[in-house]
């Protein structure tokens, strides 16, 4: 069995910055976050819009995420 461990470069400060960024972002939007999650690289109404802006910016290793209509605890779809 091969085993490898990936330690994500997350510190408390970075996580708090992530929270700040998410709270500051418009709802129902797509965001491209920098790899260290300390900056919003792009915002778009759609995935492709945010992705295109992020690519154009030259940012490397960004990750996209989506803000909901409201930040809340959710019981997510346990039945089908």
């Amino acid at each position: 069995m091969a085993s490898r461990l990936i330690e994500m470069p997350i510190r408390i400060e970075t996580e708090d910055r992530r929270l700040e960024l998410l709270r500051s972002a418009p709802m129902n939007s797509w965001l491209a976050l920098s790899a260290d999650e300390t900056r919003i690289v792009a915002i778009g109404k759609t995935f492709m819009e945010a992705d295109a802006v992020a690519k154009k910016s030259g940012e490397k290793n960004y990750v996209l995420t989506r803000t909901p209509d409201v930040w809340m605890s959710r019981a997510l779809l346990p039945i089908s």
Partner: protein
Amino acid sequence: MDVTSLVAHQLKYLYKKTPLPDGKFDWLPILPVQVGRSTNLTSPFEAIVDSGSFDCLFHADIARAVGIKDITTGVLKTSGGVVGGAQMQTYGHEVRLIVGSDNFKIEAYFAENLPIAALLGRNGFFDKYIVTFDPQGATPGFDLTRVHQTKK
């Protein structure tokens, strides 16, 4: 069905903070993934690892990003939440799910009104990985252990 399982490799990820009302927050098991179809491949995006979800669910924008212009051409499935009456129309399409250097075909379900980017559920994700959640301690996180299954 006889199944032979082979544990291939293990990955560890830390939980990420997600806002809640009144300045509070929650730690969630969030995994960066990509979706591919034919020659199209999305940029990495965040998906919540959710054992409560039967299927892997994605916002319809992800479908469009891999060339599925009309999600309603897929297999219709109505999903519901724990709140009575809350239902969501989802449409299934075969795509490739990319997790790090690993990738495999799944039947992904897409919805226009999914409030988040994606959920990784039992059918398509938890049948590929043993997932161990560890929300305790200073660095809450989760482990993924890839299991390759061979049907006999």
